[in-house]
């Protein structure tokens, strides 16, 4: 099975080579056989005797990340959709994409997506699933940006990436949490241990993380906004990724995990609300669109919402209907996208305001559209699969049973009404799409090209899909008996058998709801122009898109404001922040750990001369602050330095004192030389508040260091290693000057590298000076 998943990805490597010959043979013609072969490989599994199959291949076993492929009914439904629609879309693209386009890129991305999507639905390992999940987002990003010279493509690509990868990362967090809770990375094992997960206090968080991933991918309100902008992709991509397959990955995820979370009441509440709100909102908004593909995009969103809602209901009837509708939606929506692409291809526009009356020019396309839209609208005709699933949807909204909490109870009461509301608008936009394009008067003057029927090749793929619509409509039990039943079983946990009939009698509540939909829908279609103004009132200026744009805009603007605020470029500010951070945190730690220890017991008596020297050092250190001239500062610093060497002398370290003396003398001399060339010190004209803060910080920091020093001195718990040096200096080191032995022998490595430091410094200074003066070379 790993082979079928990875084969598109592997073959993608050869596409750049194949595409070199695109003028002889359209690259798509070759590619077409890949999904077709996969389709025929998987079709063998359909049948009543189907049992889930598992294949495992090691990848990173130490982290529990393996290619655990698990093919059950749900996966089978998806792999057939992915490969089947994939083949049709590739076939369609052969006629849709001109050979002058960069075909190589297109098919590389498409094959990448195919592998990724197959991987998502076949992986039992959560982290492998996540890997493929992100790969679908990446390939979708590249496909939306296929015509990247268009500003809108770039915008749409970025938007889809930000939103779906945001969801993906969240889902990843959820997966990590689940794997920590359950101790496994396999979804099936998690399902088997669902009670462990449900009992864990972090379960709601994991659920929230995962749902965020599902909702963003499946374009649920308010994350749906990326999907309309994704329509910038070439139409075959919209038909494939953004309608039939990728956007259903979120549904797949919810379906997969409903075996774990299904019994948790908030799962029902959140998923149902998200689904039903999306259904209503998007179907309402679809009527307001003028671009054919935008209508279809909103339609897709709303249909996804409907399926999501059914997955949320989680009842037998609902799960069955959801799975059934995944298939049905793929057939009619896929064909409608192709119809929209054909219309665009043959007329040069997708603006419904410019279209109309195309029936006479494009009769076959119009017929295909008729079946597609009628099925989508759920018109009660016995050869439309959309009607069956719509009917099942209504049924499932009616048999919800009471939840414990008030919210769930309230939801159960209102869901049927919302379902009808959403379906009415579904009916309206479906007919609006059909009649707006093919009915009414022609406006040839507004079209770029003179319309004519599409070449036969472009009609084959949508034709096959429409055939699917009709066949499923006529013989629903052909798919429902085994295929859909197995898929539903994988979601629900028990076998679901359901007979789907066209006729339930006049008293069937679901049928009455359908009649309401058709009746009110027809009324609204005919009067559309009269009530169209309602969109100015609601949503009016409200728009989730605006929220996204604002966030992205502010993200850039605020990050700039924040960063320029603290990255002021002033060394003094930087030091103030660094010092005060160290001060506050260290004092905090000293208080928390009882760090102050002050013990004067272990001190030698202070002599008069020591006191004098120290006072001189202190006085000169303070003096530097008040000195007004460079020269004065250098000399005063020198005094402090000489004071220190005096201290060394008092403590009987004449060699150190001598060294310090030399260092001080040389550095004072050097400073004098350098500062001679520098401008004089300027008085700092900072406001008093800044100066006070700086004073507090510097005094505080000095006090801190003193306190830590005293405390460290008062906490000498151990013998120091210096005793060893004193003992061994002569016998092992062979020298009676301990300092010398330490420097050149015991810690000779330190000395070696300190000398290196000096060497580097010397070379660096030489370079700095010489580089400026050396005019040779380039």
């Amino acid at each position, binding site marked *: 099975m790993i082979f079928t998943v990875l084969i598109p990805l592997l073959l993608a490597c050869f596409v750049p080579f194949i595409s070199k010959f695109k003028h002889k043979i359209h690259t798509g013609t070759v590619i077409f056989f890949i999904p077709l072969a996969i389709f025929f490989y998987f079709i063998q599994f359909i049948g009543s005797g189907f049992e889930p199959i598992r294949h495992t291949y090691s990848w990173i076993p*130490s982290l529990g990340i393996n290619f655990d492929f698990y093919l059950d009914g749900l996966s089978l439904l998806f792999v057939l959709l992915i490969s089947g629609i994939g083949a049709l879309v590739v076939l369609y693209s052969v006629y849709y994409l001109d050979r002058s386009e960069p075909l190589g890129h297109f098919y590389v991305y498409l094959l990448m997506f195919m592998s990724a999507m197959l991987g998502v639905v076949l992986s039992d390992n959560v982290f492998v699933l996540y890997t493929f999940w992100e790969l679908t987002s990446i390939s979708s990003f590249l496909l939306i940006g296929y015509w990247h010279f268009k500003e809108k493509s*770039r915008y749409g690509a970025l938007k889809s990436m930000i939103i779906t990868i945001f969801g993906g990362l969240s889902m990843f967090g959820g997966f990590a949490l689940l794997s920590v809770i359950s101790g496994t990375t396999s979804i099936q094992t998690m399902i088997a241990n669902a009670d462990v997960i449900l009992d864990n206090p972090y379960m709601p968080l994991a659920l929230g993380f995962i749902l965020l991933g599902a909702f963003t991918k499946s374009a649920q309100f308010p994350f749906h906004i990326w999907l309309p902008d994704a329509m910038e992709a070439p139409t075959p991509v919209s038909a494939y990724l953004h309608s039939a397959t990728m956007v259903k990955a979120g549904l797949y995820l919810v379906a997969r995990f409903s075996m774990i979370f299904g019994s948790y009441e908030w799962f029902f509440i959140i998923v149902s609300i998200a689904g039903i709100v999306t259904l209503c909102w998007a179907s309402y908004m679809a009527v307001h669109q003028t671009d054919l593909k935008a209508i279809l995009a909103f339609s897709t969103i709303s249909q996804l919402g409907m399926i999501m809602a059914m997955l949320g209901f989680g009842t037998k009837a609902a799960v069955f209907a959801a799975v059934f509708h995944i298939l049905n939606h793929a057939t009619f929506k896929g064909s409608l996208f192709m119809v929209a692409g054909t219309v665009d291809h043959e007329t040069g526009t997708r603006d419904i305001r410019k279209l109309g009356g195309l029936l006479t020019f494009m009769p076959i396309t119009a017929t295909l559209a008729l079946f597609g839209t009628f099925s989508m609208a759920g018109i009660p005709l016995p050869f439309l699969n959309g009607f069956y699933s719509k009917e099942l949807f209504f049924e499932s909204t009616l048999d919800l049973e009471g939840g414990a909490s008030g919210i769930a109870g309230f939801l159960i009461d209102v869901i049927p009404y919302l379902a009808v509301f959403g379906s009415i608008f579904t009916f309206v936009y479906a007919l609006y799409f059909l009649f707006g394009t093919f009915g009414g008067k022609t406006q040839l003057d507004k079209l770029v090209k003179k319309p004519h029927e599409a070449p036969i090749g472009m009609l084959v793929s949508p034709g096959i899909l429409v055939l699917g619509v009709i066949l499923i409509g006529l013989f629903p039990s052909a798919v429902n008996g085994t295929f859909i039943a197995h898929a539903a079983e994988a979601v629900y946990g028990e076998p679901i058998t359901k007979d789907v009939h066209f006729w339930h009698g006049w008293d069937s509540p679901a049928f009455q709801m359908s009649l309401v939909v058709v009746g009110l829908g027809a009324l609204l279609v005919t009067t559309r122009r009269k009530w169209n103004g309602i969109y100015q009132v609601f949503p009016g200026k409200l728009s989730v898109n605006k929220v996204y744009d604002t966030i992205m805009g502010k993200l850039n603007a605020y*990050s700039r404001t924040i960063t320029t605020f603290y*990255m002021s470029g002033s060394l003094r500010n930087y*030091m103030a922040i660094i010092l005060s951070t160290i001060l506050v945190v260290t004092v905090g730690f000293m208080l*928390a750990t009882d760090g102050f220890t002050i013990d004067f017991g272990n001190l030698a008596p202070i002599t008069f001369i020591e006191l004098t020297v120290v006072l001189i050092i202190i006085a000169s250190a303070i003096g530097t602050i008040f000195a007004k001239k460079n020269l004065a500062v250098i000399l005063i610093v020198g005094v402090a330095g000489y004071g220190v060497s005096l201290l060394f002398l008092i403590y009987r370290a004449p060699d150190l004192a001598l060294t310090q003396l030399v260092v001080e003398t040389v550095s004072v001399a050097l400073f004098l030389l350098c500062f001679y060339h520098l401008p004089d010190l300027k008085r700092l004209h900072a406001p008093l508040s800044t100066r006070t803060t700086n004073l507090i910080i510097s005094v505080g920091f000095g006090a801190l260091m003193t306190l830590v020093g005293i405390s460290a001195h008062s906490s000498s718990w151990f013998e120091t290693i210096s005793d060893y040096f004193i003992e061994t200096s002569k016998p092992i080191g062979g020298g009676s000057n301990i300092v010398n032995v330490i420097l050149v022998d015991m810690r000779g490595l330190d000395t070696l*590298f300190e000398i290196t430091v000096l060497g580097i410094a010397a070379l660096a200074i030489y370079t700095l000076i010489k580089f400026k003066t050396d005019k040779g070379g380039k």
Partner: protein
Amino acid sequence: MSNLAVLPIIIPLIAGIILAFFPKKLALVRTLTKVFIIGNLAVAGFSAWHVFNHGSIILETGDWAAPYGIIIVADQLSVLLVLTTNIMAAACAFYAPYSLPDRKERYYFYTFFFFLITGVSGAFLTGDIFNLFVFFEVLLMASYALIVLGGDKVQLRESVKYVFINLFSSMLFVTAVGFLYGTVGTVNMAQIAQRVQEVDQQGILTAIGILLFFVFAVKAALFPLYYWMPKSYAVPNPVISALFGALLTKVGIYSIIRVFSLIFIHRIDLTHEVFIWIAGLSMIFGVIGALSTNNIKLIIAYNIIPAIGFILWGIGVFNQEAVSGAIYYLIHDMIIKASLFLLVGTIAYAAGTSDLRKFSGLIHYYPFLGWLLFVSGFVLAGIPPFSGFIGKLLLLKGSLADEKVAVVIIALLSSLLILYSIMKIFIRGFWGEKDDTFEPKPVKGRTAPVVALLALSVFLGIGAEFIYPSVESISRYLLDPANYINAVLEG
């Protein structure tokens, strides 16, 4: 065999000295540089192999027994980092001739380069805290030399801040080591660890530990101490930025890992808890910085900060998985940051500017550069199956197992924004219409090292099974300080 431990320090030192004798003979210098760095890489590889198979190598320099003399400790963590250092140093050595003007190369670039490697390797290998200070000085002095090489005005302006803040932290370092010596009477890290444990890290010791943490945090560019970093890293030549970005901050975070897994581990309820907060803030502010600019070099430089945050996060959580994650992320970040600095340097060279507002549609001329950047973005953001993902997964699981949820959310969000900050370059700089007046420059020599590093990075993700067991063994080793202490004091 124990001399093997010190070779990765001594070889670059000698190489640097030799190259200083004939800086004007560029052809020879370049060839020798490659020979030396590959030789050193081989040695580092061999010592890594040796350590992972036969245990740590302890060298008592000058034959002065531990804890009295300076001890070089080549343990699993050190050798892995030394190996990674040399890999990316080799990439830089191959990139440098294309990117640096000949004149800068003649002015001892390669000498400073080798001294920098000396200092970095020394810092990774030493087992003596004062000696660590000395190696810090070596690498800092070499970095000062590199950062001012050429002496442009903007370079000097940024370097003053860099030098000043690092001088301050060096001063604080030596003071803190003095305090530490005052309390525990030793500078041998194993013995410090032992003695701190004996007195249960009481009284002033935690505060001294925190001072050391701040010293390292300044070098590691953690929140809120990183002000000096972004601009001073973005200004020099790409090859120097790559060395700095991949190495210098990592020495800081390495020191934090070492000191806070070996020595100060008895109040983790306080210290390591604070680390998690600092890690989270570093992620947030680093990413905000990366989004704030249109300078592509600066975008990469800012991205160092959240990466360091990720690593510190692992130390903060301090369990097996989190520490493994931190180490995996550290290795990953050294490679990908070097690769990105070199790549962005190449892009800026190709586009003629590093201002993102001034170029677009580069993909028509440099498709390969574009796709390299594209993949790098996903590697950096930790999208599977690339290397960042493995580290992040471990960090996430370790953190969640300890019920530290807030930082997980911050980390995931900042991953998204890291990706956005790189994709911004791809979308705005590479996508777009073709500019027919544009004259492309050759970039082949510059892309080869980038490809090599990126390939390694991809391998670290896809081939994690080959790497992860070693990382896991390191984290198990680190979590039980007795391993280190016994190896040094009783070995």
